[in-house]
């Protein structure tokens, strides 16, 4: 046992020497994820607003002017008042230079003069659906403007009729955990999950694949080291490396982007360690059937897409067919991502993340068992 530990630590030491000598991969692994996180954080922290907008006014009345004014006043839209022609505006929308085009039709004001003769006044809105996020923001912005406009018109009518109106009831909306619905609060923990997969699975699989590619693997096998010792020694360094990357990403998220930490620190640090261990064993599994580094890297990248899609990061798993929902429980990233997000934002405790912890532990043991089996068999 003591001899085995000495052999493993000898290998671990060698791995760290490689790591400090690699001028290409090491900076990429250590600082790539943090750089990516900063970019994602910057890109998602602002609201989507000041969308380039045109208003085509065919109406000459007061109400039309009021509506245009209200669009102009909304922070969502940035109205270019040079564009007044409908065909031109449509052309610019196609070119991607406008996101939204409002059309206030002729007779708009007249339709809204008197409540007794009022008709539904159709305001036209063209949106660039190719840019879905901008289009969605514009749609919500437009609905808000229409609401405000309707209220203003109604108030006007009542005022003319001599009815005194104090206030219109609005629903009270309270968003828990992410008060301002900041996208970055959603994205940052998810990004950490993906990056940790990359670092843990990448370091473990590339390290083993490199020995195979260079022929040193056999040289290791003919020493008194057992195959399992070699794999442990090769994979262990991925843990502190991935953990260092996690701490850097966490520091940037909390300090730089104001991500809250509402849960228990020991719990967070533990679940991340567990998640890293599982993704690392996935890397070992990948390396067990890769002959070269490029093969291992491509497999890591392919599997990342699979984990990513079923993790619920972009595509809500709840809307997928029930079979896929069941399968998604076997995706480590889904658990890693949910746990990190829940502990950070919702401040949940062990009771809430317990099932995910058990699932990850089971997945990790299963993957390690399969990887060991494959390595053993390949020796024959």
């Amino acid at each position, binding site marked *: 046992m003591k*001899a085995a530990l*000495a*052999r493993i630590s*000898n*290998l671990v*030491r*060698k791995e760290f*020497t*490689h790591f400090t*000598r*690699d001028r290409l991969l090491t900076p990429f692994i250590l600082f790539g994820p943090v750089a990516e996180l900063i970019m994602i954080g910057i890109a998602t922290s602002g609201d989507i607003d000041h969308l380039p907008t045109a208003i085509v006014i065919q109406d000459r009345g007061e109400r039309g002017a009021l509506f245009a004014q209200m669009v102009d006043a909304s922070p969502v839209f940035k109205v270019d008042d040079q564009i007044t022609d409908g065909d031109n505006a449509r052309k610019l929308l196609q070119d991607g230079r406008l996101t939204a085009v409002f059309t206030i039709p002729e007779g708009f004001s007249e339709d809204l003069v008197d409540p007794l003769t009022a008709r539904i006044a159709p305001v036209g809105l063209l949106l660039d659906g190719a840019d879905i996020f901008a289009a969605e923001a514009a749609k919500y912005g437009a609905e808000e403007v229409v609401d405000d406009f309707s209220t203003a018109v109604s108030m006007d009518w009542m005022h003319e009729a001599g009815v005194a109106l104090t206030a219109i009831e609005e629903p009270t909306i309270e968003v828990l955990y992410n008060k301002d619905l900041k996208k970055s609060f959603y994205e940052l923990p998810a990004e950490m999950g993906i990056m940790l997969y990359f670092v843990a699975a990448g370091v473990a699989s590339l390290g083993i694949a490199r020995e195979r590619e*260079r*022929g*040193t693997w*056999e*040289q*290791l*096998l*003919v*020493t*008194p*080291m*057992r195959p399992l010792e070699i794999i442990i020694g090769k994979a262990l360094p991925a843990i502190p490396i991935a953990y260092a990357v996690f701490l850097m990403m966490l520091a940037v998220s909390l300090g730089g982007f104001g991500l809250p930490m509402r849960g228990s620190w020991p719990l967070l640090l533990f679940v991340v360690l567990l998640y890293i261990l599982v993704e690392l064993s996935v890397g070992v599994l990948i390396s067990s059937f890769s002959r070269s580094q490029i093969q291992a890297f491509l497999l890591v990248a392919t599997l990342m897409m699979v984990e990513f899609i079923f993790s619920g990061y972009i595509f809500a798993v709840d809307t997928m067919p029930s079979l896929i929902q069941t399968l998604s429980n076997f995706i480590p990233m889904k658990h890693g991502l949910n746990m990190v997000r829940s502990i950070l934002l919702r401040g949940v405790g062990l009771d809430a993340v317990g099932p995910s912890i058990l699932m990850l532990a089971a997945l990790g043991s299963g993957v390690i068992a399969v990887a060991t089996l494959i390595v053993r068999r390949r*020796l*024959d």
Partner: protein
Amino acid sequence: MRNPNAIVVRGLTKQFDSFTAVDEISFEIKTGEIFGFLGPNGAGKTTTMRMLLGLVKPTAGTATVLGFDVRRDVRLLRARLGYMSQRFTLYQDLTVDENLTFYGRAYGLEKERLLARKAAIVQMAGLLGRERTLTRDLAGGWKQRLALGCAIIHEPDLLFLDEPTAGVDPVSRRAFWDLLYGLSAGGTTVFVTTHYMDEAEHCHRLAFIQNGRIVALGSPSQVKQTVMRGQVLEIECDSPDRALQILREEKGFDEVALYGANIHVVAEDVSGRIAEIEQTLVKEGISVRSAAVVAPSLEDVFISTVRTGQID
């Protein structure tokens, strides 16, 4: 006390699906011997070595290495074996000293013994003063000697070398063989595969392997005597490349090949045809300076054996 035989192989066979890589080979290697394993690419040299190292399980037959059965006890063996593969499997981004330290510790060497062995290897390989050089910055000959050093840092009883001198200059090859003689004199058994015929001449004993079978076995001179069919005629003449073409069109020769600047013609009764051959060449305007029957080199034997094997 010592086993007289370092390796005993009986009917060793390895099949990959329907392909038989090694076909019922048998041989013994005496302790302290340098044993050469020769054969063309794909003949089964490396597979045989991998079976003896316990990296590949034999399909049939037995192999006893240092008294241990490779099928069962290979793990007990490992600490007493050294292995240097074709590609000098050193870590290029580690220094000379780091490579030696890593392999030394992998074999369980510690403290004083590790230091003493590292010093001895550095001395032996002529790497004094280069301990802190990155391995990738070493020239080929040094890399090769360092790889040998890593393979013998634990003073193995048996050393396996898989084409150890491929891609190394002749001076370094010579120096490398001197190291092997030293090891052999110290009692280490050496099992070496090679393509180089001049190297094979340096071995105590040889086995020729072809299509998975041993076709010749013995000392270099025994192999030459028993295996070689026919005599070798060495011809020294002008424009040997043209002479080669002319003689290749003639019938009745087993082999016509360039040998340095000369031509070697192999045939059963070649001594009786010297006059005829000279005439043929002179008729084509090639002046022949000398033509005499010589002792076959291992290269002649090798090529003759391989050709015969292909015909069988």
